[in-house]
């Protein structure tokens, strides 16, 4: 059980995020926030009114709905709790999305073993514009991005079945987030494969003298989670549209994207960016080539490549560029983890040196007396 003190601290670091989300009630007459949110409300409303799973979309003239269903089912369940008021339920979800960064706390705890560093990650993530605007609105992306770090945590802890189940849940919640997870797991396989080929040793974190081999369960879990996610999604798309080719969708066809320039990076947040890069440097200087280190590198690398995916356009012009700026939020997640490590370690080394110096001055004074 979580200690009361830790729970209180978690609640405390969630307060800034809660304050931001309460803005949703600022507009009293209608609080469905901006675009793309109401279509889920009408779907939930339709489900509650008819009692049948709607296969058509109230937007775009009532065409078949390609949205994967888990977020909508959650909204429907919350609306049912509030006497069928799906608009109010959507606002309740907006406020409840404050728990979104909890997965980051778990990831930090898994890789450093320190709960308090995890709290810093939560705080940092709440100050990243790019991350907050996608996790503080009643959209499938909020739920997907809440589950993504949880999937990472489960994998790092070696809970492979749970990782696979979470990746399937993400696939049925938000396609873009599922894509990020599948790419991270694939990148991890690739990096581990390269390290194996180079016969580079991977060191145990708990015992730096012990050379470990990556558990074969890692390979199996990565392959299972990625292949099942792809099969699940394609089955859904095939069921709804009768077409398995994702590249025929308008998003690919018209290359929805906005190229990420250097100045866009500031939208991730100064804290996230500065201490995230510092933290990554500190982490790899200490960790070396470890299993967790390779996994975190995969996460970071995928996000960096994703925000600059227009660079792959010469290789695959029919796919790239695609949604470059939309991946900034995912980069902010992984940078929040590294920022927590950076802030904690810099402070610790400064405070430690100060304490050490104070102790030695005290000893010198005593010896002089």
């Amino acid at each position, binding site marked *: 059980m979580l200690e009361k003190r830790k729970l209180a601290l978690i609640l405390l670091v969630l307060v800034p995020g809660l304050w931001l989300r309460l803005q949703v009630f600022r507009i009293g007459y209608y609080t469905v926030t901006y675009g793309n949110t109401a279509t889920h409300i*009408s779907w939930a409303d339709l489900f509650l*009114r008819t009692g049948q799973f709607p296969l058509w979309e109230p937007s775009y003239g009532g065409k078949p709905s390609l949205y994967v269903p888990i977020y909508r089912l959650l909204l429907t369940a919350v609306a049912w709790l509030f006497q069928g008021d799906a608009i109010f339920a959507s606002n309740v979800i907006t406020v409840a999305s404050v728990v979104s960064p909890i997965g980051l706390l778990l990831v930090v705890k898994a890789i450093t073993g320190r709960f308090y560093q995890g709290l810093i990650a939560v705080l940092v993530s709440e100050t990243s514009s790019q991350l907050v605007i996608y996790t503080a609105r009643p959209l499938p992306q909020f739920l997907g991005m809440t589950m993504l770090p949880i999937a990472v945590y489960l994998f790092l802890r070696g809970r492979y079945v749970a990782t696979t189940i979470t990746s399937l849940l993400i696939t049925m919640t938000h396609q873009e987030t599922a894509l990020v997870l599948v790419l991270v797991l694939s990148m991890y396989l690739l990096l581990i494969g390269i390290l194996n080929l180079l016969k580079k040793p991977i060191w145990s974190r708990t015992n730096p003298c012990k050379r470990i081999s990556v558990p074969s369960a890692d390979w199996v879990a990565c392959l299972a989670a990625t292949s099942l996610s792809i099969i699940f999604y394609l089955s859904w798309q095939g069921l709804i549209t009768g077409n398995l080719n994702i590249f025929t*969708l308008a998003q690919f066809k018209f290359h929805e994207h906005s190229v990420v320039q250097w100045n866009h990076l500031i939208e991730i947040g100064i804290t996230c960016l500065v201490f995230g890069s510092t933290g990554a440097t500190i982490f790899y200087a200490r960790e070396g080539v470890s299993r967790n280190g390779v996994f975190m590198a995969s996460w970071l690398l995928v996000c960096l490549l994703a925000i600059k995916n227009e660079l792959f356009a010469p290789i695959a012009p029919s796919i790239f560029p695609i949604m470059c700026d939309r991946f900034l939020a995912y980069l902010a997640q992984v940078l929040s983890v590294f920022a927590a490590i950076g802030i904690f370690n810099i402070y610790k080394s400064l405070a430690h040196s*100060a304490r050490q110096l104070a102790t030695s001055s005290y000893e010198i004074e005593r010896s002089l007396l």
Partner: protein
Amino acid sequence: MDRRLVLSLAFLLIVSGCLLLDYRAVSGSLTLWYDPVVDRDEVRAAYWIKDNLPIGRDVVYAADLFASEVIMSITGSPAVIGGDWSSLSASEMGRFMDSQEIFTAQSADVAHGLCERWGVDYVFLSRRMEVRSYFGYEWVHIPKASFDKFFNSQHFGLVYSSTDPVYGVRGVWILRVEEW
């Protein structure tokens, strides 16, 4: 005080400063994303639709993206545009430009033809759209002449009006697309 202690305190201050700066930026950007764009009259009109007009999958509305969202969420009836466009097939992308054209065209004939093309039963018109409407590409200004065509033609029949005669700057009209 010890120099290193001062350094560690200074570091904490720097971190807190960065966090505060970022938090202010987040608050600012989130305000934009929490903007419903539509005004009170539009929401009232959507509830009026729910109570007074036929609703369901077969009753389609033409509106800008934000009014479409209000109509969808309150009435459950579909709109020509609205929601995530990513699942649209490439052949359906004409919805965006045609929706815009329904409102910006000065000819009632053109607007009516486009309504028929997309199976529109009602047009949802708001004063707000004159200065700030959005059809999927950019914010659009609808000229007054384009607005007036809906009222000076037998192509469209007025079924709802919320115009405030005192102020005359806000208001919503719902027009039935007549069989022609």
